[in-house]
Structure formats: structure tokens, C-alpha cells
């Protein structure tokens, strides 16, 4: 049955791994600093950032100003802290 190991594919096809780390965004959503690995697509970082900033700005408009938002998914936690209109974002996969 060692033959079956042939069917274990090489790693040329990469699934996106969720990293642990943080990054900061300015108020326009530009990434300023990051501790996340380069393997994690930047477009994901921008999208997470954009949605977090929108949520923070929306809360302010809804008369509930928030300094922090934490989003819990079944397999991931994302936390954003307001930084004078920008944000510091922490990404924490479930262990």
C-alpha cells in the first residue's frame, strides 16, 4: 500500500493558511505595518480592514461610538482597535 503515498500530492497547490498576527491601517485603509506572513494574501488584509473600518465608522454614525470590535467566527477571531480613524487589527485562528 506504499503505492498510495504516490497519491499524496506535492505542495504545489497551496490552500490559504490563516495566520496569527496583527497589522495597522490608516484611516484610508492603507496597510502601514504588519507582523503577518507574506503568504497571506494582501487583498484579504485589505478586505478585512475595509470591513472593520466601515463597521467602526458606521457605529459612530449610529450614535454608538466603539473603540474596539471583535468578530467571532467558528474558526477565527478578528479584533480591530480604533486608532484615530485607522485601526490595529489582530487575526487569531481558532486552535
Amino acid at each position, binding site marked *: 500500500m506504499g503505492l498510495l503515498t504516490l497519491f499524496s500530492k506535492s505542495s504545489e497547490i497551496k490552500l490559504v493558511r490563516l495566520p496569527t498576527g496583527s497589522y495597522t491601517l490608516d484611516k484610508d485603509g492603507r496597510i502601514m505595518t504588519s507582523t503577518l506572513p507574506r503568504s497571506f494574501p494582501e487583498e484579504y488584509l485589505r478586505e478585512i480592514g475595509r470591513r472593520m473600518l466601515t*463597521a467602526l465608522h458606521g457605529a459612530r454614525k449610529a450614535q454608538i461610538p466603539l473603540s474596539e470590535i471583535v*468578530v467571532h467566527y467558528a474558526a477565527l477571531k478578528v479584533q480591530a482597535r480604533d486608532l484615530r480613524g485607522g485601526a490595529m487589527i489582530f487575526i487569531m485562528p481558532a486552535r
Partner: protein
Amino acid sequence: MSARPKILLVDDDQDFLDLYREMLSQHLPSSPEVRTANAGARALALLESEPFDLMIVDLSMPKMDGLQVLSIARRKFPQLRLMVLTALREDQFRIRAYAMGVDQYWIKPDTDQEIGLLMESVESLLTREAQGGFRGVQSKSLVDIVQLECLAQSSCVLKVNNGVVEGRVWIQQGEVIDSEIPGLTGEAAFLRIVSWKAGSFEILPADPSRNRAIFTSYQGLLLNTAQAIDEAASFPVPETNPIDGKPKEISVTATLLAELSQVEHVEFVLALGGDKSEEFWGLENPKPLVEWTRATLASFRQLGERLQVGQLQQVLGSGPHRSVALAPCGEGELCVGFPPESSAEQLRETMKDILTKWAS
């Protein structure tokens, strides 16, 4: 269901597909019909065109990876059983796959023994499906399941999930000995769990270390349950809307909101229905909050799908004047306000209680 169960096997490696098609179709007692797809898009097209009982998916595939396929399949075909068969051993992928609702996660076997176990597992999934929908309470109610387990003098733990909260019922030698949901244990938790109208459950091995907290016989418990259901059914018929003649559900929601308002630290509650209706307590002008709640939950749901990280559970916010917690709840959504000094842990625990009450 047809006499022969149907399996859809998805992997980009054609040799793998050929080998496993032969193994599954020829060596399983149920002699399943096995169809194959070498790409995610092809698999989804096949699912659209014919019914399957089980889909077995590899995760590493080009273009559309296995997590994407699972995410779409789970949403569009909720009754389909899903199994991951991959070479990826990292816990992260296992956690994400289970978060998406797969039934089993298998590493591609290397030995005869592992292949044997995999075959047994596939057969078990197919047989469970064939024996009458043990997937959830749509085809068998929880009362039926408890009764069957007790009559069979079984010892097991029933893990029940109504989509929002999880509960457990401990059965020891045909008697219900304890039950638990967040914030409730014993008989009260049991009555709450069996009142859930939809969800899924699984039967776990017995837990002999669990202390007995319910001393009513299972017949007594089920009788109490039946009485509670009868009493609920005998409530006055709700007032009807003079325009469309539909019953007004506002009174039920209003009662629930009043109950939630009694939960410690809760400052306001906003309940949004899937039909765009809204009910609130403790708010003077809910409109901006309604818009923000809907937009925020929709946005983070989309993000969750994009990142393939399973269901959105809660969004917690803290600010100088107030903390808020948002959560999807069945077809609807909830937004609950708390004092600003509430800790994240407090918010999360209180929201669990609130969601339990709401779901029940």
C-alpha cells in the same frame, strides 16, 4: 432514496479518483454508485443535476479549492453528507472544515488498516443516511430519539445543536440523568432542549463520570414535555393583522424582549426579523442602529464566507458609552446593549444565555 446510495468523489488527481471509485463501489456492503469530478466546479454542477448521499472532497485543488466547494455545498445542499479526504494534516484545516459543517475529516490512508477504517466510516455515513435521517430533528423529533435510547436501555450522550446553541443530554442505562445548555442544567435544561424545533444532533459515547442531576424517570420527563407542548398550543390565538389577516407575532417577540430586558446588565435589545421587521426595548430611536446592525452582520457574514472560517457567531463592540453585541439568530438578528465597563468575556457569556432564550 434509491436502493444504491450515491457518492460523489472530488479530487484533481485522476489516478486517485479511479482507484477510490473502484474501492468504494466494489468493497462497501452497500455497493454505492460512485461518480467522480476532477474539479470543484464540475462537482457543483453534478450536485445540481442529480441527488447524492455523500460527497468526499479533497482540499488541495487548483482554481476552486476544497474549502470553497464545501462552503457552497453546505449552503445549497444542507442534507448532503460531507467528508474531507486530504493529505493536509494541519489542525487549522480540520477546524475550518468542521466549522463549515463537514461530517468527517480524513487524512488519505497509507496502510491497509487505515483504508479499512475509512471504508467503515464511509459505509457508516451512508447507512445512517439510509436509516432515516439521523442528521437532525426534521425526520425524527428529539423526544423520539430520547425515547428510543431509553427503551433500548442505552448509555450515551446526545449532543444537540439548534444552530445557535449547543446542549447535551446524558443517558445512562436507559435513564436521562442530566442535561445542560449554557446557563441551565438538569431538568430545566432538558425541557428547554426538547422544545427546540430544528437543529442537528449526534450520539456520543456514554460518560459514566457524569453525576446524576435528574431523578425523574424518562417517562415522567417526556410526560412533562408533552404537557408543556400542550400548554403552549393552548395559548390564545394571536391577534390578526386587519390588513393581511396574518397573525401578529409582535406580542410573542415583545414578551421575549421583556424577558431579555431582565437579564443582568442588558441596557437595550433590538430584534430584527428576516422579513425586515424590527422589535426593540430600551431604545428611543432605533433606526440608525437597525441599519448598522443589518449592514455589519451582512458584511462580516460575507467576510466569513470569503475567508472560509465557518459560521459568524458574534460581533462584540466596546466603546466609551456603551458595549454592544450583535449575533445572527435563526432567520433574524439580535443587537444587545450593555454598560461600557462590561468585559468581552461577560458579553460573550451573557449573549450565549440570551441566544439560548431566544432560540427556545
